[in-house]
């Protein structure tokens, strides 16, 4: 305790940056993951490249006021099982915070943690909890609270998606002793070792991982991993305890939620008196009308269909950020004709991503390469350009036994509208290869009932800071959100390897292989990456657009 572990990986990263083998973005991301403090990381970059971080002059923030945001109000009772991402966690986030924070530059900062250290083999993570954080009722926030939360999200009975993230390194499968209806033993998961989550002292926890894992601090920021007060038993409702700057005072599902500022917050702010989240409904023009008449000061997220109308308002400011948000057109690999990888590849070859970005997103995006890793993510490995080739697509289909193409149905949720635009554009392009697809647009609620079951569906995947995170959530065999049923043991092996490799050269080589598999064999057509944007009233200060539409209420202020 107390001695600084000189992490050899940080030294290696420093020399790679100095030698120009990695760029500053990659250095910042990985060095901070390794535990180098953010200011030190930026300082080093400044020394080496001459591009320091010039801290913007912080004007004094005006106090007071109620910020009104247009959003959707979903059920928020169980943060550990949240599935929406922004709609639900934006409300709970103002009350219950996270151990870390990944900012809009994809750099992960400690938040409720003071710092972390990691062993050179990336298997032992020591988390140091801040000592000045208190729950609203005055009790201190301690390691016991952290451990309670971590154990709860990894409990299969709770049903949290964190299981999919951490299953490789924290959990193991075992025979639960029951049989399913086919007579096969039912498998469940549990911590791989009794000491996987170890309490060292009141403010220190050690995570002992089964295999090396580099992205632990980022996983701790996954939106279901809010630090809840153990006494609330996992239920989040008005009056729930939290370490955050606000308290939830009102909640009406489908209508509005109100959080009010509290006293004694450990961090920055809050400058506002309260934040009101208001549900504008499914109709995108209602949100435009509300902004126009200043009934709301901003929208949590805006759709390309609203861009022109909102831009015309004289009192708003545009905020945008390139993201790794996308909608995949995914096939269920257990159903014909998608069980044949040639068919899947043909579907990718028939698509022109650049055109789809223009049509579906009005240009507010970048083309995708079908492997679900974005150039904006630091673990992206550049492959040869995957060009559109309709002739090759037709040939693959013929080889697979579909010389005149085939018919299919694509299920698309109505909300957000750009999903429909993307699907229609893809359908038109598929026609040229003989793939005749009927688009079935259904209400959002209905789609989310069947998204895992439909043979071909358009599913939105929100931004994750690392490519491996999404690959692990969506394509690893058997995880809760593996909607395509994709099960490739080689892919899983490479994924584990990538997650544990710190050397960026080696990791990129592994990522390249994973991306290659996705382009050759994978279950999705992924033509675009969305640039998230929104419009806020000029009066709102301190806001910057986060790739996952997160709102950090304690940093916001309003001019009167």
């Amino acid at each position, binding site marked *: 305790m107390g001695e600084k572990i000189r992490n050899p990986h940080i030294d290696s990263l420093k020399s790679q940056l100095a030698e120009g083998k990695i760029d500053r973005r990659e250095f910042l991301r990985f060095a901070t993951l390794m535990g180098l403090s953010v200011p030190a990381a930026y300082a080093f970059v400044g020394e080496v490249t001459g591009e320091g971080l010039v801290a913007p002059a912080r004007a004094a923030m005006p106090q007071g006021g*109620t910020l*009104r945001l247009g959003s959707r109000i979903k*059920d928020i*009772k169980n943060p550990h*099982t949240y*599935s929406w991402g922004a709609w639900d966690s934006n409300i709970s986030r103002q009350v219950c915070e996270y151990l870390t924070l990944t900012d809009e530059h994809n750099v992960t900062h400690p938040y409720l943690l003071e710092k972390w250290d990691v062993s050179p083999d990336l298997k032992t993570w020591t988390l140091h909890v801040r000592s000045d954080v208190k729950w609203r009722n005055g009790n201190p926030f301690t390691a016991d609270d952290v451990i309670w939360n971590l154990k709860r999200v990894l409990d*299969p*009975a709770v*049903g949290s*998606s964190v299981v999919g993230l951490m299953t490789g390194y924290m959990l193991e499968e075992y025979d639960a002793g029951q049989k399913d209806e086919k007579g096969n033993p*039912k498998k469940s998961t549990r911590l791989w070792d009794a000491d996987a989550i170890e309490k060292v002292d009141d403010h220190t926890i050690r995570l002992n991982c089964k295999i090396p894992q580099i992205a632990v601090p980022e996983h701790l920021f996954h939106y279901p991993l809010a630090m809840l007060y153990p006494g609330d038993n996992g*239920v989040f409702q008005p009056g729930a305890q939290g370490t955050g700057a606000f308290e939830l005072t009102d909640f009406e*599902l*489908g*209508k*509005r939620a109100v959080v009010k500022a509290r006293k004694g917050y450990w961090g920055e702010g809050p400058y506002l008196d309260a934040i*009101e989240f*208001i*549900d*504008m*409904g*499914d*109709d995108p*023009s*209602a949100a*435009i*009308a*509300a*902004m*126009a*008449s*200043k*009934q*709301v000061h901003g929208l949590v997220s805006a759709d390309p269909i609203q861009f022109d109308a909102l831009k015309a*308002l004289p009192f708003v400011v545009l905020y945008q950020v390139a993201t790794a948000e996308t909608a995949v057109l995914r096939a269920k690999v257990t159903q014909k004709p998608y069980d044949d990888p040639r068919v899947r590849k043909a579907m990718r070859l028939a698509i022109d991503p650049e055109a789809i970005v223009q049509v579906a997103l009005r240009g507010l995006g970048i083309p995708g390469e079908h492997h679900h890793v974005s150039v904006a993510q630091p673990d992206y490995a550049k492959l040869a350009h995957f060009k559109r080739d309709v002739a090759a697509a037709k040939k693959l289909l013929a080889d697979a036994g579909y010389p005149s193409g085939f018919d299919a149905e694509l299920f698309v949720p109505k909300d957000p509208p750009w999903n429909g635009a993307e699907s229609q554009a893809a359908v038109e392009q598929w026609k040229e290869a003989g793939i005749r697809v009927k688009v079935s647009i259904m*209400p959002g*609620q*209905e789609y*989310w*009932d*069947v*998204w895992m079951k439909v043979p071909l569906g358009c599913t939105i995947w929100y931004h994750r800071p690392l490519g491996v995170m999404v690959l692990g959530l969506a394509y690893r065999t058997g995880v*809760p*959100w593996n909607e395509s049923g994709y099960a490739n043991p080689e892919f899983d092996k490479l994924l584990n390897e990538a997650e544990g490799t710190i050397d960026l050269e080696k990791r990129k080589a592994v990522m390249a292989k994973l991306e290659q598999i996705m382009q050759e064999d994978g279950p999705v057509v992924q033509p675009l990456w969305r640039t998230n944007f929104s419009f806020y009233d000029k009066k709102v200060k301190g806001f910057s657009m986060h790739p996952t539409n997160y709102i950090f209420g304690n940093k916001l202020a309003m001019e009167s």
Partner: protein
Amino acid sequence: MLSFLAKRLVGLLLTLMAASFLVFAVTEFSPGNVARKTLGPYASQEQVDLLYSRLHLSDPLLVRYARWMSVLVGAIDDPLQDSALKLDFKDRRGTRYFGNFGYSTLFKAPVNDVIWTRIGHTAVLAGCAFGLIVPLSLISGILAGMREGSRLDRTISILGIIFTSIPEFASGVFLAAIFVVGFGWLPGTSPMDSGSGWSLAAQLVLPITVLVLFDSGYVTRMVRGSMAEVMNKPFIRTAILKGLPRREVITRHAIRNAMIAPFTVILLQINFLISGVVVTEMVFAYPGFGRMLLEASLFGDIQLIEAATLIALTVAVSTQLISDIGYMVLNPQIRL
């Protein structure tokens, strides 16, 4: 009269039972089941299956319908509120009472907590709209019909047709473009909460205007047609030839007779205003009954859909009853 009313009441009950059974049967074929909707999309399949069996959702349709009916009349406890299920569904009225519409899986609250506020909001909207539609259409219809073919008649008729032909979502957007974005006189949405600085009254102006424009065009034409027909009747000609001033002819003789046909039409507008205003409610994000029913239907929230259907049907049949009684008052020759 009493036996007439009793017969109609029995008819109402039978209609309600038949319609509620039909709705129950049709919602069967919608995707998803109550257990999945209750637990959310990312609960494990095992948990959904467990809840499914505990709620006896695999019972035959008739059994489940009978169970729903029994909960409604207060004969048995609502199974979703069984505390052994640990779903945390609480109804402050208890688990067994008359009028227990059950639990809404969409809003995660007892149906009775959701539906009556929504009906209240729509009633306000409908009431104000109705209060404007009736005098407006009556006056324009009478003015137009009393002198058929006159310039006033033609003007009113054309305006009526134009307004009726413009659908609500179009007129809503036009009005918003002019008065919200253009002049900034009115709020763009009507969430019926006063925190945004717009009074509740201001929030009602645009939705009511849309409804009034859309509906009064139609009713005006009905009133005008009936009025014109009555004005051509022999007894009106007699009254004029007798020397009665034109004004007295119209007020004492024509209007009362002209109102019989439009009376039903006007009462039917109530049905439209209760459940047909969903488009207006969507455009202005108004927390009303129509929008709730639409969201419930899209979600497949069977309890809410059933409750809403029963209420809408009761309103429809009651307005029919009122209109029949009104007939008797307006025309003594009609006796039921």
